């Protein structure tokens, strides 16, 4: 039986495939066009610029089930300088959508932290839509590791 390296590692883990991982690696992933479409829809056709929004994500995720991420957008959050929404996408997940944050003047700061699932090493993308229609984007690659003998 011809063995691929992936087969050897999968079997070396020793476990029968038990549905513990919410996103199984190897499943169909979000096509890049889908991600492009989602961003275009969100941005109302505007081309996202870089700047203003910072996405913080770990370089290496200890486990793909729980990856902490934060976003922060430079904005006074009052008057004309307001963040409307921030879209979070993952370009290698079975479905690229992760979350959409909505802010108001009462937010004080356009910042949020959450924990997300990543099926494999991929980019996490954050797109901020400002009240004046301008759009900004940040992207970080997160390496998702497969553990050893996880029990």
């Amino acid at each position, binding site marked *: 039986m011809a063995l691929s390296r992936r087969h050897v590692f999968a079997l070396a883990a020793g476990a029968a495939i038990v*549905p513990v*991982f*919410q*996103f*199984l690696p190897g*499943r169909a992933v979000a096509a890049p066009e889908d991600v492009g479409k989602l961003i275009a829809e969100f941005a109302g056709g505007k081309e996202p610029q870089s700047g203003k929004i910072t996405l913080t994500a770990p370089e290496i995720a200890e486990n793909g*089930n*729980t*990856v902490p991420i*934060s976003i922060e957008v430079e904005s006074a*959050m009052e008057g004309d300088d307001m963040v409307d929404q921030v879209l979070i996408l*993952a370009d290698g*997940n*079975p*479905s690229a*959508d*992760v*979350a*959409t*944050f*909505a*802010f*108001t*003047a*009462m*937010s*004080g*700061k356009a*910042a*949020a*932290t*959450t*924990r*997300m*699932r*990543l099926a494999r090493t991929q980019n996490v993308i954050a797109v901020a839509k400002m009240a004046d229609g301008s759009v900004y984007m940040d992207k970080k690659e997160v390496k998702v590791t497969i553990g050893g003998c996880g029990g």
Partner: protein
Amino acid sequence: MSAAPKPRVKVPKKARAGEIVVLKTLISHEMESGQRKDKDGNVIPRKIINKFTCEFNGQPVFSCDIDPAISANPYFEFSAKVNESGTFKLTWVDDDGSVYTDEQKIEVD
């Protein structure tokens, strides 16, 4: 989970007018993504918290539309600018229509 989803919310008890405070929120929920299959190969149906909102004295502060890529026991940390004393109301909406809420008071001077 045999128990109903439980919220866990951390809000400062006091703040000065105009201060921006940080809220931390957790709720126990499996967030079944709809991607998993059981032993017989049948898809385990999706069942997640799909929306989270925070209001202060009836005004919207922050909300999140949630997809299955958010981890189990969803955690949200965000800010609120408080100008007066009052009550934060937090709401989590389940795919099955259930709504879970929590309220936290803050004293602002």
